[in-house]
């Protein structure tokens, strides 16, 4: 497959930027819209699980992060076009996570600064938008911040 054209490159970047912003601002409607209906989320590489389908994914992430302050950042992507409407993308990522007082007390950790990669597949949907069809998060390092009462 030839290299990606710029319009598609930018559209994929916009989708991921929106993913980060909606997640961090708890805009769950906006967050849901960046995924395909049959999306697969794999966070086993970050202490999580595999979740199938947007209708399962959004409530699962929401329950986990609703009372948590998060700031997600993604860096320069590596994009490989699979076919005209499919692209595989690897993003270096960093996140700052600060848990609620209750969760910090029960886990012994106040928060973290994490480093890792998102490995994702994007597809062009019938409305022309690029959405995330699968996403896997792996970690390089997590700086854990101990909780002190």
């Amino acid at each position, binding site marked *: 497959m030839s290299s990606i*054209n*710029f*319009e598609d490159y*930018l559209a994929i*970047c*916009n989708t*991921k*930027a*929106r993913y*980060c*912003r909606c997640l*961090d*601002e708890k805009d769950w409607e906006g967050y849901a819209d960046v995924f395909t209906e049959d999306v697969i989320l794999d966070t086993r590489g970050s202490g999580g699980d595999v979740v199938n389908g947007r209708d399962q994914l959004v409530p699962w992430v929401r329950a986990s992060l609703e009372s948590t*302050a*998060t*700031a*997600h*950042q*993604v*860096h320069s*992507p590596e994009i490989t076009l699979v076919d005209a409407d499919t692209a595989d993308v690897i993003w270096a990522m960093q996140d*700052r996570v*600060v848990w609620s007082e209750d969760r910090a007390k029960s886990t012994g950790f106040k928060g973290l600064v994490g480093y890792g990669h998102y490995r994702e597949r994007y597809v062009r949907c019938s409305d022309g938008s690029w959405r995330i069809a699968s996403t896997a998060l792996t970690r390089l390092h997590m700086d854990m911040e101990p909780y002190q009462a």
Partner: protein
Amino acid sequence: MADMELIDAFVGISQVNAQFCRTLDGNDWAAFSSLLTEDFVLDVSEDNEEIATITGRDRAVEAIRQELDDATIAHHIHVPEIDLQGSEAYVVCAMQDEVIWAEPKDGVAALNGYGQYHQHFVRRNGQWQLARLRLTRIHLDKHRAQGGKP
């Protein structure tokens, strides 16, 4: 052709944001000013309620200079969402900043902040310039001064 316009906007805006961070962090106020339109509007009221929206490049730069000239600062701007509308663009970017105050402020020695820059860019005479900047915060880590002064 649509592709070329997008490339021009993406590259132009990315360059302005890179220069924005570098000239701000390097306290190069003349170069920093050149990135802004004369009628530039700055809104950092979410960070500091005492600072109302500032209209005008010279007033905005002076306010930023007074606040940050003595501090050690590092700003990062991440992947933008760009809504291109001809010679204007509405952009939202994740940002992160580190600020180490020369003297602790209210017991705070340094800040690590996370948020979004909401930007309005305009292309004038072939140059992309920043016409409006609003900062919203997701999280602010405040590092307390150790010991502190009596």
